[in-house]
């Protein structure tokens, strides 16, 4: 963690600002993965449309700054307004998608969340005023009055870093609260929870909305980081990537999604540096982790730790 905090300093010293950008992306995707982990890892709700909220957050920033520049409406470039609107829209969207989807189970749940995500994807594609399929370039980043201007890559990095810590702490508190215990209980045995008299559907819906909101905030950060918004942000492959990160890192653990996101992006950068055909190594690696991992990288780490202890 301390190492992560020092990334921009080191990057500045060795004059490689690219690494700040790369690690910034890892932090943002980590937040996205943490939010998905809340419902997927702890609640057993496999949403295949989680990137929608990333897209909503991104488009709030994209559309806001677009009007701030084009029409000179300065409040539309305000970062606090971006965050607020992103939170509200993500919550409403999650409420809508969740209230219908949570009536289904298993693979049907996976596919209905995908269906809604695709609908939002195509709405963005069809919206010509904001670039349609071609996307929208940001001509400025979110501004938090005069206190914080995200145009500086380092300030953005530290905002990402702070929010990551905040959401890690939040999810730690949440999963150990009464609410969290209920959600986890419903994952292992839904019938029993219902029989005891807990409104499982309502609890799940609340969790679904919380996850959506956090991911929406990640979307706000993501748009600022890439200076560009396009429907591709909510393409199903992005939702898939988020799932892969969570499963790879270890679902249902606190740090699993962070490990997964960092490992995913690091392997991508590292392996693609070695060979153009890096996916031919990455692919079988995923297969092996799925077959032998049982709990992703985090699971492997835990077992290594145990083995170490026993050996001692």
């Amino acid at each position, binding site marked *: 963690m301390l190492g992560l905090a020092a990334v921009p300093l080191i990057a500045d010293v060795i004059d490689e600002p690219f690494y700040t950008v790369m690690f910034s992306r890892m932090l943002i995707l980590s937040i996205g993965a943490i939010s998905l982990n809340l419902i997927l890892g702890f609640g057993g709700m496999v949403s295949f449309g989680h990137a929608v909220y990333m897209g909503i957050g991104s488009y709030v920033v994209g559309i806001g700054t677009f009007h701030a520049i084009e029409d000179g409406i300065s409040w539309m470039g305000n970062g606090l307004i971006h965050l607020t609107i992103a939170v509200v829209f993500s919550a409403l969207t999650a409420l809508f998608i969740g209230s219908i989807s949570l009536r289904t189970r298993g693979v049907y749940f996976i596919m209905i969340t995908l269906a809604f995500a695709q609908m939002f994807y195509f709405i963005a594609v069809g919206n010509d005023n904001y670039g*349609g399929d071609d996307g929208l370039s940001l001509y400025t980043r979110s501004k938090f009055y005069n206190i914080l201007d995200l145009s500086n890559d380092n300030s953005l990095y530290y905002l990402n870093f702070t929010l990551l810590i905040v959401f890690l702490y939040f999810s730690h508190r949440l999963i150990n609260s009464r609410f969290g215990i209920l959600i986890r209980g419903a994952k292992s045995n839904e019938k029993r929870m219902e029989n005891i008299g807990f409104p499982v559907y309502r609890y799940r819906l609340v969790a679904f909305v919380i996850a959506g909101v956090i991911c929406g905030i990640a979307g706000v950060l993501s748009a600022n980081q890439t200076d560009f918004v396009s429907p591709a942000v909510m393409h199903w492959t992005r939702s898939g990537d988020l799932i892969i990160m969570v*499963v790879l890192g270890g679902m249902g653990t606190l740090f699993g999604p962070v490990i997964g996101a960092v490992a995913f992006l690091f392997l991508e950068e590292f392996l693609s540096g070695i060979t153009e055909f890096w996916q031919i190594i990455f692919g079988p690696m995923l*297969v092996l982790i*799925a*077959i032998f991992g049982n709990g992703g990288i985090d699971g492997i780490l835990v077992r290594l730790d145990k083995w170490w202890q026993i050996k001692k």
Partner: protein
Amino acid sequence: MNWILLLEQIMNGLQLGVLLFLLAAGLTLIFGIMDLINLAHGSLYMLGAYLAATFTNWTESFFVGLLLTLPACMVLGMLLEIIAIRNIYTRSHLDQVLATFGLILFFNEFVRLLWGPIGLDIQLPEILNGSVELIFGIRYPAFRLAIIAAGIIVAILLYLLVSHTKLGMLIRAGASNRQMISALGVNINLLYTIVFGLGAALAGLAGLMAAPIMTVEIGMGEEILILTLVVIVIGGVGSIRGAFLAALLVGFIDTVGRSFLPDILGFFVTNDVADTAAPAISSMLTYVLMALILAIRPQGLFPPKGV
């Protein structure tokens, strides 16, 4: 309304539908019997297309290429099952997603190494390369007609296989009650390998038939995989009949949306708006359909009995 256009679009919908059915049939069987989410099904479709293009270019005959591609895909599928897939049946769906996603990456790069990044072409034989006259002087591309015919023949053969043979009986039993057939002393490993090989051959056949109209290239399996998943979920996982009807439904919706939506929208909004909104809305239709069906029937249209 222009009836000739309507008829032609129905044919187009049918053609897309049977193509989707070939993919969906294998996927829904694998899903229903082995309880496996196989994202790599699209990769088998891609491999089918590449093999077909390669064999056709070697032998300079589309039909010989076809005869070589199907067994090759079947063997490939069985090998894949024995090497990798067999190990993940008992794992959670998410581990399966991770593993088969890894396989997609692997196959995409494998194809790039072997065949290069550019993609291949299939030269159609003369008799399939033109258009033929249907009734009332309507002309329709011969190859698309061949796809429809092949798709319907396969559907009939599958029906006969599943409802009138011993293998089919086991498949039906497997789809509705997995524990039962293993308790009956059936060689479950062999059954799984055969079903997976069968699914691979069907995916390969779909790839082969899509190849001449949709270009053979890396990643061609991913978009159609999602549509195929939509089909099997609408139809009800494990149900071949459901997959068939859902495939036709999705095929029609997609084609009709593309061809008539701009005009329909034109009644309500200005032409400019209709022109830009129509492509997006028509792409959305299949997903709206799926969401509606699942909202009303959370198990799909034809859930297999006894689950």
